[in-house]
């Protein structure tokens, strides 16, 4: 069988206490990421991608609570660790890249300082050595005249350059896992591909695993080994990237794919919209969360939530009551 995965999330449930009541942002999510592998998480806005990612490093903040589940990284249960121990992992063995390069860097600190900081923290390196290494890192992310820019402040850099700085920062301690939460959504379409190529190339070189959260199905096809599709806080389908594209098994995934012109289409193609709205996470329906928008909905869907189950090939799971044959037929009909 497989060796133990690098990251093993099982049965993760996260909720937020809000004025509207308890928002169940993530329900019973299980994910595995193997060393060196790239896992893409896709789904509409609000489907729980960021919350899942933030839970791994325990960065949810005061309002969010993990109600159930385990997150095992490299043999350690992250949710059970002392604060000090999780801090030792953050930025060292697991690094994170955020969506907004404009606001994710500290405006009053030089980029050299910000890239050097994790090296200083986790390697206990003197500032001088950490800065030197920061210079090398900025060069690796292809910032022109890297050494000369260590003293620059974030406002002196463009969005794309800042995201390069974020990548340099994430790579600083050669993490085993990098979580990139929509790293290019805020960038110009022309810059998006460059940044993703860079991220992919550098994670491959460092043999880091990558969790790539994205809205963009083109990105998934091009960069991911495995894909998890999230809807309303749950994983509705997960498969090796090829298998998913060859035979999407969940009506939601199919809806998403139906409107992309071609799989290797341009990067920057957003998730096409499917009619209707995702359900309110504070008032989830009793059955399948997709029932209100699903073209194949039938009685069972409204009463019982579907569980993730094998759908044809190995490692391809989906959560849908529709039987496999009928699902295939439905695809035929639509195309």
């Amino acid at each position, binding site marked *: 069988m497989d060796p133990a995965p690098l990251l093993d999330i099982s049965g993760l449930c996260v909720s937020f206490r809000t004025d509207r009541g308890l928002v169940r942002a993530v329900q019973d999510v299980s994910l595995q990421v193997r060393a060196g592998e790239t896992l893409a998480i896709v789904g509409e806005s609000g489907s729980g991608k960021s919350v899942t990612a933030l839970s791994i490093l325990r*960065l949810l903040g005061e309002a969010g609570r993990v109600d159930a589940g385990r997150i095992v990284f490299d043999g350690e249960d992250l949710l059970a660790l002392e604060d000090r121990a999780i*801090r030792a992992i953050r*930025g060292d063995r697991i690094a994170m890249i955020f969506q907004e390069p404009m606001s994710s860097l500290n405006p*009053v600190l030089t980029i050299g300082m910000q890239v050097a900081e994790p090296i200083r923290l986790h390697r206990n390196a003197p500032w001088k050595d950490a800065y030197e290494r920061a210079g090398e890192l900025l060069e690796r992310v292809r910032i022109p005249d890297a050494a000369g820019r260590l003293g620059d402040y974030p406002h002196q850099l463009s969005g794309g350059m800042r995201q390069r700085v974020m990548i340099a920062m994430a790579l600083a301690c050669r993490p085993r896992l990098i979580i990139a939460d929509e790293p290019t959504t805020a960038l110009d379409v022309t810059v998006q591909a460059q940044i993703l190529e860079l991220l992919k190339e550098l994670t491959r070189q460092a043999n880091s695993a990558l969790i790539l959260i994205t809205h963009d199905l083109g990105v998934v096809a091009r960069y991911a080994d495995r894909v998890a599709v999230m809807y309303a806080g749950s994983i509705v389908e997960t498969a090796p990237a090829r298998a998913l594209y060859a035979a999407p098994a969940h009506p939601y995934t199919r809806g998403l794919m139906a409107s992309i012109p071609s799989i290797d289409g341009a990067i920057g193609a957003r998730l096409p919209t499917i009619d209707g709205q995702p359900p309110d996470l504070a008032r989830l329906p009793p059955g399948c969360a997709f029932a209100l928008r699903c073209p194949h909905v039938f009685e069972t869907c409204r009463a019982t939530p579907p569980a993730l189950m094998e759908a044809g090939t190995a490692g391809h799971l989906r959560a849908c009551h529709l039987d496999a044959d009928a699902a295939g037929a439905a695809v035929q009909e639509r195309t």
Partner: protein
Amino acid sequence: MQAYIVRRLLALAPTLFFASLIVFISMRLIPGDVIDLMLAQNDIATGQDRAKIEAALGLDQPVYLQYFRWIGGVLQGDLGVSLWRNVPVADQLWATLPITFELGFLALIVALTVALPIGVYSAMRQDTAGDYVARSFSLLMLAVPGFWLGTLVMVFPSVWWRWAPELEYTPFFEDPLKNLAHMIVPAILLGLSMSAVTMRMTRTMMLEVLRQDYIRTARAKGVGEALLVARHALRNGLIPVVTLIGLQAPLLIGGAVIFEQIFVVPGMGLLLLEAVFQRDYPVVSGVFLVVGVGVLLINLAVDVSYGWLDPKVRHQ
């Protein structure tokens, strides 16, 4: 930076000019004038005496001429002579300014040492008991008028413990300890009254900053709470707080007037109060001129410190 400071100083000139004009004119609008007071004091009340004194003091001329004579003198470094004491105004200012400066400086230190740590603590522990205590304290400080607090400190300890604050002024360079023993009570009271707003502002700004994306980035790098505040949050949070301190400068001076009177500190506040009651126009104008320059210089210092706190400003 130097060019910037010079430019700022030049820009101060028109502001100062208008400020002096307003002070000069408004003094004449206060009912009752200096001659009435002098006559009343000396029990002489004939129209002839009045005209004589007016002419001697130069008050028989139209107000605008008086103003130009005054401003002409100021430009040559001559602030005129007190109407009552026959002492140059400049001498009186030189004697009192350092005392008020010391009071203000001590008060500022008190205000910052109280406001910043408590404000930061309050923000880090939002909605805990400690936060509520800190916020209630600052509300209390906001609500209690300074003169009332000063009077309490004067009266109650002496009734309860037969202890009263020192009321005798000793110059700092004669005996620093004795000087501080006198100044510390008004400085603490003035500082506390300033700290209320500063503390609330620090708390609000820190809460705002702690919500920012770059704080999450720092956490994701493994930065611990203490470093998070010291390195990542405080400087961002302080930018608006520094503005507030600049805005509070006039309040500080207003507070100095009150506390100097209660604690008999022979500073500029006391000088001003006396001069206003006596309608000693040149002294009042002189004090306001110094206050005006002082406030503008404080604001200049605030601007300069922005450059240090905020790299965006530095690069403009």
